[in-house]
């Protein structure tokens, strides 16, 4: 008898256990992103910039990883205060190092990175014009609570944009990425296995009482928003 192991084995979600506990691994991840994967930040940046309009003052980044997206956005919109929160201390430390270098090189942006539980954000109700998150949802410990928090802090008329990988993305998109991430392939696959399917994302929204929010598939990605989203293909 032969057993045929599925190539990617992504049918079931496998939550990450204790991610980012190794500081050296976090630094390696950060360097890897900076050296060869900056392209990944382009699409969420464009989406945030498209949602921005005159008079906006505050953005919040939920789960900022090593800070690269917020640093990029802030450099484009120096008049906006960008506040990032992250619950893994090693990620906070590396993001702080990245920010320190930006401040030292006189970046005009106004960014702060803070350690915080994502299920209880340190921001007032209706205080953020745009609430965004990129590549973080799959490791939120209490995703329903964090979604509720995103809704709580977003100003009336504001925008929530949560992007992550789609565990059930077409295999072609996944193998395309695997060609490029090389030694980071295992880590990428662990994250992908921990990611939500579109149906699961809808279920999270239902549990959070946010049934009117939208879930959109986009190549490898999944976009959750309080506003209609037009998928963009690379």
């Amino acid at each position, binding site marked *: 008898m032969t057993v045929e192991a599925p190539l990617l084995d992504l049918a079931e979600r496998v939550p990450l256990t204790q991610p980012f506990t190794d500081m050296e691994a976090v630094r390696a991840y950060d360097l890897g992103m900076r050296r060869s994967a900056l392209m990944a930040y382009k699409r969420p940046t464009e989406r945030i910039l498209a949602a921005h309009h005159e008079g906006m003052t505050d953005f919040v980044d939920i789960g900022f990883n090593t800070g690269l997206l917020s640093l990029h956005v802030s450099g484009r919109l120096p008049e906006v*205060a960008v*506040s990032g929160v992250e619950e893994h201390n090693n990620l906070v430390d590396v993001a702080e190092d990245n920010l*320190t270098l930006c*401040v*030292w090189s006189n970046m005009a942006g*106004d*960014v*702060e990175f*803070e350690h915080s539980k994502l299920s209880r954000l*340190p*921001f*007032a109700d209706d205080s953020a014009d745009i609430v965004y998150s990129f590549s973080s949802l799959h490791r939120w410990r209490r995703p329903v609570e964090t979604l509720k928090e995103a809704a709580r802090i977003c100003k009336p008329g504001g925008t929530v944009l949560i992007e992550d990988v789609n565990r059930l993305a077409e295999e072609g998109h996944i193998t395309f990425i695997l060609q490029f991430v090389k030694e980071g392939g295992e880590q990428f696959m662990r994250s992908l296995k921990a990611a939500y399917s579109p149906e699961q994302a809808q279920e999270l929204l239902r549990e959070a009482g946010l049934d009117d929010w939208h879930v959109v598939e986009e190549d490898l990605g999944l976009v959750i928003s309080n506003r209609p989203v037009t998928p963009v293909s690379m």
Partner: protein
Amino acid sequence: MGRLRIAVVQMESKLGREPANLRRAERYVRQAAGDGADLVCLPEAFLTSGNILEVADVAVPIPGDATDQLCRVAAELGVHIVAGLLERGEDASYYSTSVLIDRTGELRGTYRRVHRHELESRYLAGGTEYPTFDLDIGRVGLMQGYDVNFPEVSREYLRRGVDVLVCSALVPDMFTYLVDMRLPVRAVDGECVLAFASGVGNNLYAGFGYMGRSQILADPLFLESERFDFEDGDERMVLLAEGEGVGIVEVDIDRMRRYRDKATLRNDSRPGTYWRPVADAVTATGPATAALQT
């Protein structure tokens, strides 16, 4: 008067990131107010961190944008706020200054730190006054971290009858032991509540950290008279460790005043015998008589 909730905010202020430092401070003030604080105390130089090498670039006028924002927050939340700032004085000098804003949002006044260590003296001028502020919560005096080394400061405030002495601090961590030892003594010296709001984090320019250990203390002799189960060390009613956060405690100012009315230390002191000229006294700057004249 009566019961008063005091909060100390322990936070890291980062060099070159003033707007973010102000936002974070504001969030901590909101957190403290949400927990019922009447008086919220922020660290020394909370806006800029201890950036005295660039003080000419980072110091702010008082009043100015930073205090205007604190006034708005104080009025909105109905809390008194004490905060430390590097001040650009109207006399073109720079000071390490604490501001007091009352719960109506009025900037009531400032304390310009009197004592400066040697390096600081090249950049900062020193104040000469020990102001007090009568609020609905009691009489408040202000001091800053380096002042802890000088018992005269808390004695001056004792003379002025303060109930709460707020020390906004940003102390290099090599002095942790010394400052930690002196703080309870200053509470005894002042026969008051001492709120020590202390910065944490690292000075990236100079490679040292800041001590943190924010605490709220009361004169242990008062507490001992109040609590039958008082043990030595209980005078630190709140003590934060190294990280950021807010510590809150409730004290009864009326009871403390009643205690002070009968406190024997105050009654037994002999002010007329102190700081009289001494012909052969040893001081850093020469005869004590000369020092007394400055």
